[in-house]
C-alpha cells in the first residue's frame, strides 16, 4: 500500500436553485461542504476523497477520510446536491468495511464442500476456475453454467457481467439480484412509458402539493429522503402513506392507510373509482396523452370503495378521502418501493399507481409525477446495460433481431453466437435443483440470505458441481463455494452508479486494494482470457469499460453517450438520457408531452386485483410481511460485521400486535407452509392485528426467508416477499430463540473456528419501533 491515493476530484457543489434546495440547507449549511482551513489543517496529512455511499439507491455524497499512508480511516459528510451532508447510520459506518479484519485477501479453493478452503495464488485460483467451467460445459453444454450478478456493482461491472456471460461463458443463463428488488416497477414503467426509470427527481418532492408514499418505509430504507418528505410537509403538502405498519413517516401522515398486505391493487383501483366518480380526472390529459384509459377505467369501475374496503381491511371513507386529496391537488406525486413491488402482482400494483397519476394528469410536471425508490445503490443502473437475462446493453431486448445485430456488431461477434434470453434468478435456482444448471459464477450477491424459501435454495446450491463466488467478505453463499475470489470494495475502484432518480454519479477510488485483492473487472477480463475470449475483454479498468458502454448505449432509450467521467466530476451527477456531451441530462421525464413509446402516449393498462399466492386458512390465518431495518443492508453480509450497526440492531424479531397475547421478548414461533423460525416478540400497536413483520437481513436460523414464499410475479419474476400466510405459536423456552450466527469471515475457515453467539436477548427498541413494555 505504497502508492498515494487519487487526488480528490474538484469540488462537486452544484449551483443551487434555492426553490429546489432541500430543507435544512441555509447558507450556513451550504458553506459547510469543506471546512475553512483549520479543520482540515488540523488533521495533519489527511485527504478527503469525494465519493458516494455504497449502499441504498439514494447515493448520498460522502468524503472518505484517507490518512497519509493512503488508508481509509473515516468519513465526512459531503455537501452533495442529493443529501446536503445528511447521512444515515449505514453511510456513516460504511467506511469501516474497507479495512475490516474479515476482508478476504487471498483466493480460496477446495475440491469438495467437505474440505476446508486453501489459500492459493491468483494464477492457481483462476486456472482452477477456468478448468471447472470448461468441465461443466463440456459435459452438460454451455447453458449448464450460470452467472448471477448484483445491483450493488458499478454500472461498468454490470455491463461486463452481461458481456462476460454471453461471450466468455457463452451461456444464456445470466441474471442479477435486482430481480429480487425492483423489477416490478421496471416492468410497469416500461409497459406504460416505454422507459424504465422514475419520472421525477427527488427535488420535485419539495414542490408537490400531495405526496403519496406506497409500500415504502422511507424512514428506515431511504432515511435521507425523509428531508424531502418533511420539506414538502413544511410547505403545506398533504402526506398520504399506504403501509400495513405505522412507520415513522406514516406516524405523521395526513392519511395513513394501514391496508392488509397484498391488497394494493384493489386499493388503488378503488381510489381511481372515486376519482372517476367525483369527476376528478384530467380529461384533456387523458384524451391527448394516454391510450388504454377505457380498459383501466372499466377495471376501476368494478372496484368500488366498499368492495375494496373489505379486501384491504380499511374504511371505505378513507379510500374516498385519499382520492379527493390526491385528485384535487394541483400537483401530486406517488413514490413507491418494495412494499407494493414484492408481490405476485407487483407489476399490476405499480401500473395501478401509474393509472392514478395519469388519470389526474400528474405526469411530467415539476412536483407532479411518479417514482420508485431503488433499494440497492445501483438498482437503477444495474439493470440498464445487459445484466438482466432478457436485456442487452442500452436496455435493448435480447430477442429483438435488430437489437441483437447492433450489439453483436459493437462486441465484434457473429449474431448467431449471441445466446437467447435465459431465465430469472429464482428460476435459475429451480434449474439447479433439477440438475439443469450444474455450475455457477456468483458476483456481488448472497442468495443464502436473500432468496425466498431458503431451505429449497441451499439444497439447490448443494447440487452444483462447481460453484465460484467473488466477494470481499466470505458471505453465507461464498461459504458454500468451491472457489472464492477476493475482490475490491467500492472504495478501491472507480465507477458509476445510477440512483433512484436515474442520476448517474461517480464513485472515486480512495485507497489501493489490500495486497491479494483484485477488482471484479480484472477478474472477469483474466478469466475471459483463459476461456479464449481475451480479445473481447482487453479492458484495463472501469474507464475503458465505461467508454465502450457509452457507445453501446448511444441512441437507445438508456442513452449514456453524453456522460463522461469528467462531466460527472464537474456536475455531481447527470440523469440519463443524455445523448450528447453538451446535453444537460434529463432529471424530469416527459416534459415535452411524449413518452418513449413510438406513439408518444402513456399506455394505461387494465389492472385487476388477485389475492396473494399463499392462501390464508384456519391453520395459517395471519399475513407475514418482511422488510428492512435502518441499520442493515440487504443480506447483511456487509453491515452485520460493523460494530455500531450490529449494536443498533443485533438480531431480527417478530413485530406483532398486543392482540395476540404475547409479551415483549417472548419467544414466538412463526410458522408458514415452508418452515418455522423462533424469534423474540416485539409487541406494538403500530401494526395491524392480522399482520406480523419480520426483518430479513439475517441468515438461517433466524432468517425471515425460511418463511417467505417463492411464488413469482408472472411478468417481472419478482418473488412475493411481502405477503404469505402464517400462524404464531408460543415457543417453550427463551433459549429456543437462537442468536444469529457471527457472519463467516476469515475466522470461518476452517469451520470449527466459527464462533456462535447464543445470547437469547429480547429486542429492546433500538430499531426505532416502540415496544409494548419496557424490557
Amino acid at each position, binding site marked *: 500500500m505504497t502508492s498515494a491515493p487519487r487526488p480528490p476530484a474538484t469540488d462537486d457543489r452544484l449551483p443551487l436553485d434555492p426553490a429546489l434546495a432541500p430543507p435544512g440547507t441555509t447558507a*450556513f449549511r451550504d458553506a459547510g461542504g469543506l471546512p475553512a482551513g483549520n479543520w482540515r489543517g488540523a488533521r495533519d496529512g489527511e485527504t478527503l476523497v469525494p465519493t458516494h455511499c455504497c449502499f441504498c439507491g439514494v447515493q448520498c455524497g460522502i468524503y472518505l477520510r484517507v490518512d497519509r499512508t493512503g488508508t481509509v480511516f473515516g468519513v465526512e459528510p459531503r455537501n452533495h446536491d442529493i443529501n446536503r451532508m445528511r*447521512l444515515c*447510520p449505514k*453511510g456513516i459506518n460504511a467506511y469501516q468495511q474497507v479495512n475490516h479484519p474479515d476482508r478476504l485477501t487471498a483466493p480460496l479453493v477446495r475440491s469438495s464442500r467437505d474440505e476446508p478452503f486453501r489459500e492459493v495464488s491468483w494464477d492457481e485460483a483462476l486456472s482452477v476456475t477456468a478448468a471447472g467451467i470448461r468441465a461443466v460445459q463440456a459435459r452438460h453444454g454451455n447453458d449448464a453454467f450460470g452467472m448471477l450478478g448484483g445491483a450493488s456493482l458499478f454500472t461498468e461491472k454490470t455491463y461486463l457481467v452481461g458481456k462476460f456471460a454471453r461471450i466468455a461463458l457463452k451461456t444464456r443463463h445470466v441474471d442479477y439480484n435486482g430481480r429480487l428488488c425492483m423489477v416490478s416497477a421496471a416492468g410497469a414503467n416500461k409497459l406504460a412509458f416505454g422507459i424504465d426509470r422514475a419520472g421525477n427527481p427527488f427535488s420535485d418532492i419539495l414542490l408537490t402539493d400531495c405526496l403519496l408514499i406506497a409500500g415504502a418505509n422511507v424512514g428506515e430504507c431511504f432515511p435521507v429522503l425523509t428531508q424531502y418528505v*418533511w420539506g414538502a410537509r413544511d410547505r403545506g403538502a398533504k402526506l398520504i402513506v399506504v403501509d400495513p405498519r405505522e412507520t415513522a413517516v406514516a*406516524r*405523521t401522515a395526513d392519511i395513513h392507510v394501514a391496508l392488509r398486505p397484498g391488497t394494493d391493487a384493489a386499493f388503488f383501483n378503488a381510489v381511481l373509482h372515486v376519482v372517476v366518480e367525483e369527476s376528478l380526472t384530467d380529461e384533456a390529459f387523458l384524451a391527448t396523452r394516454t391510450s388504454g384509459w377505457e380498459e383501466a377505467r372499466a377495471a376501476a369501475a368494478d372496484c368500488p370503495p366498499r368492495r375494496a374496503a373489505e379486501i384491504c381491511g380499511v374504511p371505505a371513507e378513507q379510500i374516498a378521502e385519499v382520492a379527493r386529496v390526491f385528485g384535487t391537488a394541483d400537483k401530486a406525486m406517488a413514490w413507491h418501493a418494495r412494499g407494493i413491488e414484492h408481490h405476485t402482482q407487483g407489476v399490476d400494483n405499480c401500473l395501478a399507481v401509474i393509472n392514478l397519476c395519469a388519470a389526474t394528469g400528474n405526469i411530467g410536471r415539476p412536483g407532479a409525477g411518479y417514482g420508485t425508490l431503488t433499494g440497492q445503490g445501483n438498482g437503477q443502473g444495474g439493470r440498464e446495460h445487459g445484466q438482466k437475462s432478457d436485456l442487452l446493453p442500452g436496455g435493448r431486448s435480447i430477442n429483438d433481431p435488430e437489437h441483437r445485430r447492433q450489439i453483436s456488431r459493437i462486441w465484434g461477434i457473429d449474431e448467431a453466437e449471441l445466446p437467447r434470453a435465459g431465465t430469472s434468478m429464482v428460476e435459475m435456482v429451480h434449474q439447479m435443483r433439477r440438475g439443469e444448471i450444474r455450475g455457477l459464477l456468483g458476483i456481488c450477491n448472497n442468495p443464502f440470505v436473500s432468496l425466498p424459501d431458503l431451505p429449497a435454495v441451499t439444497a439447490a446450491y448443494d447440487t452444483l458441481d462447481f460453484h465460484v463466488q467473488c466477494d470481499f467478505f466470505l458471505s453465507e453463499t461464498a461459504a458454500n463455494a468451491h472457489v472464492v475470489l477476493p475482490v475490491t470494495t467500492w472504495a478501491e475502484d472507480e465507477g458509476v452508479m445510477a440512483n433512484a432518480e436515474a442520476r448517474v454519479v461517480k464513485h472515486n477510488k480512495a485507497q489501493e486494494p489490500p495486497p491479494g485483492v483484485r477488482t471484479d473487472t480484472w477478474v472477469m477480463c483474466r478469466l475471459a482470457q483463459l476461456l479464449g475470449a481475451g480479445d473481447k475483454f482487453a479492458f484495463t479498468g472501469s474507464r475503458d469499460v465505461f467508454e465502450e458502454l457509452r457507445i453501446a448505449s448511444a441512441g437507445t432509450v438508456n442513452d449514456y453517450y453524453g456522460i463522461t467521467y469528467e462531466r460527472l466530476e464537474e456536475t455531481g451527477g447527470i440523469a440519463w438520457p443524455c445523448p450528447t456531451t453538451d446535453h444537460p441530462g434529463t432529471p424530469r421525464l416527459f416534459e415535452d408531452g411524449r413518452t418513449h413509446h413510438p406513439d408518444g402516449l402513456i399506455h394505461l393498462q387494465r389492472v385487476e386485483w388477485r389475492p396473494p399466492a399463499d392462501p390464508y386458512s384456519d391453520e395459517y390465518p395471519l399475513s407475514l410481511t418482511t422488510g428492512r431495518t*435502518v441499520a442493515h443492508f440487504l443480506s447483511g453480509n456487509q453491515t452485520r460485521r460493523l460494530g455500531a450497526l450490529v449494536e443498533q440492531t443485533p438480531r431480527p424479531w417478530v413485530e406483532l400486535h398486543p392482540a395476540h397475547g404475547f409479551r415483549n421478548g417472548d419467544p414466538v414461533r412463526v410458522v408458514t407452509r415452508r418452515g418455522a423460525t423462533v424469534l423474540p416478540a416485539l409487541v406494538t400497536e403500530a401494526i395491524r392485528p392480522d399482520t406480523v413483520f419480520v426483518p430479513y437481513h439475517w441468515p438461517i436460523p433466524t432468517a425471515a426467508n425460511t418463511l417467505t414464499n417463492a411464488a413469482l410475479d408472472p411478468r417481472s419474476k419478482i418473488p412475493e416477499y411481502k405477503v404469505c400466510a402464517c400462524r404464531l405459536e408460543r415457543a417453550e423456552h427463551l433459549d429456543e430463540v437462537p442468536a444469529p450466527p457471527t457472519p463467516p469471515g476469515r475466522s470461518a475457515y476452517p469451520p470449527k473456528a466459527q464462533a456462535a453467539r447464543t445470547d437469547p436477548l429480547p429486542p429492546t427498541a433500538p430499531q426505532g419501533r416502540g415496544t409494548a413494555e419496557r424490557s
Partner: protein
Amino acid sequence: MMGRTIFIDPGRCIGCQACVSACRECDSHRGKSMIHLDYPDEGHSVASLPTVCMHCEDPVAPCAEVCPADAILVTVDGVVQTADTSRCIGCANCVNACPFGVPKIDLAAKLQMKCDLCYDRTSAGLAPMCATVCPTGALFYGTLDELRAERPGVEVVDAFAFGGTTVRTGVATVVPADRGRRPLPGGLPVVEVNGVDVRKADPR
C-alpha cells in the same frame, strides 16, 4: 438560547440513530456516542426523540456547578465543555446533577465525557456531527432565524420545568405552534410508581 445552537424537533425524528453513529465519529471521543435516543410512546407508536447536551444557561450548567475538580468549563459563548481530562477525577457528581441525564462516565478510565457541541467543529464554523448528518433535520444547527427561514412559523422553547425549578438552556426544542412559549415539563414522564399506572391520577 445561544446564537447558533442545536434545535431539536421531535416531530421529525425517525429513530434512525444516524446521530448516534455520527457522534461516535467525532474526533474528541471517537468510538463513543454521547447521544441518547428515547422512545417516549413505546408500544403504541414508533415516536423517538434524541437527547444531546442541553448546554444549560440558567442556572449555569448544574454539572459544572457540582464538579469538585472544576473539570467542566463553560465557554463564553455558553458551550458546556466535556471534562478536562487533566482535572476529572471520575466522581460522577455531574451525572447525578444533570437534569437531562447527559454526562457519561467511563468507569475504567475514571473520566467523564459529554457532548461539547463538537467544539472542534463548531469553533471552526462547522455544524456538530449529529446535526450535520441528521437526515430529517430533527437535529438542526443554526440560528433561530435560519430555522424559521426553512420552517415558517416554527415555535421553540428553551426552558424546562423540573418541579418548581425552571432551567433555561442553550439548546432549544421545537414545540407545536399553538403551544406558546411555556416551559416544557422536564424529565421523562412518570408512568408507573410501584407498579401502579399513575397517568390517570396525574392531570398533567
